[in-house]
């Protein structure tokens, strides 16, 4: 078993005929993923990178048994594309699209809950399980099959760190880039149980950022319910305090959300905290040696 994608994953790419859709269809296929269908309304019957294109997700699912959708559809239409995937019975949607208004994402999230659809993203790199499948846009070159899980709110920083793990001689079980938007379909806390239950993951790397309280909540979960070793890196410890969201933002945050708050929560929860991204691989190796799992 892997966390969310594996060799049974059959990807449909919504927005496959766009530039990004086409590029990443190629890359997902190169990763070994079964990309079975693309959807672009009005382009049904054509092919992109050898993948058949359909006018609707329902048709794509009926014809190909697609079970994961990767959405590249532009922000104004992304909510609708998600509805279409959800109504077609797709249980997992990876929303790569950036700049989706959070009001739309709230609707998508709760609609997904009602329909039993998990969302990764939006504005996210997606999921990759080396040797199995990739649903998203993380560069193929950073991966090597292994037993280190990675969850992250970042994009390129994730690639940097995953690449570092690879260059240190280790490999990854599954990497999930959750996306850094204010509302994400799957947060650290939602993703942690997946890695806890994954027999292929020995250690988890958590990559966070300042802002929001997702890392503090993750720390709480790790402390009480996560038994595997965790190595964490939080970006932004030297960043200036962000422009404040009025008084309301201060009340919502109540002192959390800073790098200091996140780092101390994670340390208190037993995670090993890396000061810089290039320190992560060394710390991962150390923790793995400790637990004898190398």
């Amino acid at each position: 078993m892997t966390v969310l994608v594996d060799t049974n994953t059959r990807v449909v790419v919504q927005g496959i005929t766009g530039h990004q859709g086409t590029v990443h269809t190629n890359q997902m296929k190169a990763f070994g993923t079964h990309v079975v269908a693309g959807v672009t309304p009005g382009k049904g019957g054509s092919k992109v990178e050898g993948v058949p294109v359909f006018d609707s997700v329902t048709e794509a699912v009926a014809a190909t048994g697609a079970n994961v959708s990767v959405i590249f559809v532009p922000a104004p239409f992304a909510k609708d594309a998600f509805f279409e995937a959800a109504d077609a019975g797709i249980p997992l949607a990876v929303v790569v699209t950036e700049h989706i208004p959070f009001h739309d994402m709230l609707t998508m999230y709760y609609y997904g809950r009602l329909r039993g659809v998990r969302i990764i993203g939006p504005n996210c790199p997606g999921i990759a399980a080396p040797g199995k499948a990739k649903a998203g846009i993380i560069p193929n070159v950073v991966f090597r099959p292994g037993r280190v899980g990675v969850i992250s709110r970042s994009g390129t920083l994730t690639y940097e760190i995953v690449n570092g793990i690879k260059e240190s001689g280790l490999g990854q079980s599954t990497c999930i880039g959750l996306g850094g938007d204010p509302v994400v379909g799957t947060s650290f806390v939602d993703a942690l149980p997946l890695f806890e239950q994954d027999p292929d993951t020995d250690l988890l790397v958590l990559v966070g950022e300042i802002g929001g309280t997702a890392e503090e909540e993750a720390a709480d979960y790790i402390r009480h319910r996560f038994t595997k070793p965790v190595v964490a890196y939080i970006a932004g410890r030297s960043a200036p305090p962000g422009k404040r969201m009025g008084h309301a933002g201060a009340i919502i945050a109540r002192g959390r959300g800073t790098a200091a708050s996140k780092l101390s929560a994670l340390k208190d929860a037993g995670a090993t905290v890396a000061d810089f991204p290039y320190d992560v691989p060394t710390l991962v190796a150390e923790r793995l040696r400790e637990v004898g799992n190398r």
Partner: protein
Amino acid sequence: MVKLAEWRGKELFRRYGIPVPNGRVVRSAAEADEVVRSGAIALPLVVKAQVLAGGRGKGGAVKFATTPDELRSVVTGMLGMPFKDETVKEVLLEPKVPVGRELYLSIALDRSAREPLLIASGQGGVEIESLADDQLVRIDVHPFAGLTLYEKRRVSIAFGLAPSVSKELGGVLDSLWKAFQDEDAELVEINPLAVVDGHLVALDAKVIIEDDAGFRHPEYAEIRDDRTPLEEIAREKEIAFVQLDGDIGVIANGAGLTMATLDVLAQFGGKPGVFLDLGGTDDPVKVTDAFLLMAKAHPSVVFLNIFGGVTRCDTVAKGLVAAMTQVPDSDRFPLVARIRGNNEDLGRQILQSAGITALSDLKASVQAAIAAEQPRTARRAAV
């Protein structure tokens, strides 16, 4: 995000049925004169500088005028006044009213709950975050249920208002919720919501509209009250751009990588002055734009940190080389690039051929960038 000036926020409130004072925005003492002379608003007046920063009361940005002469002098004094990072360009004139109780209402996103959060307090008119939790009512508003009757009742009970005012409060809450949703707001805040002659009036308005919802709200595209000129260019080019206190320019792709880069720079004693996030793009025009923008900020050195995923390293490198040729001589700066990811070797090769330092190790390249800093004096002379 689009932060609306108070007067724009109040116009929006009025459109949604939230009572606001009868106000006029003026941009000169003559206009202010005319407001009083025409009888549009009678003296005494409140004069409020239309800046986005808080603390206007203490900072002399809210004053009163009881005579035409006083009004002229207050308005003249306020217009052009610097206030924090802004300059006062317009002032809002409103009748001075007898303020009774001051309440607080806001709706903003609670990320963890994934629901909008309504915050209410019977202690408005102050720095609301200084209040203790038991002075605040916090209500998560589910987007599918909307603001319910029982939730409105909770606020009303917490405020301890007379029944007639309670009913008005229900209307204000409905309007505030509707505005939050329909305008794709990140924040709608009334502080204070005052009781004036037994009726509720929003005496201030803070509204922030989400940038990403621009496709639904073209009307906000022209409102850019809170941006510096460079930030405005960056916004048009869809480049995330932030000005800081130091001298080193940082260009990276992705917020996380940008922040991590700043962290490493800080670790080695570098002081970032501008940072600029290309996002997930491999559009060479955008890279050039970013570069020209950076040049305008006159950095001591520019450190470029790219991890090519969506962005291909060779594309970035070509854009970079092209951009460098377009930077005017007066704005030239040293450049150190660190490129990883898709086609990284090719990217570094392209840069090195053009005489740009290009490395692959993050720590080493940061140190190289700091070593390459041009003295401030040299740069100033160049400007």
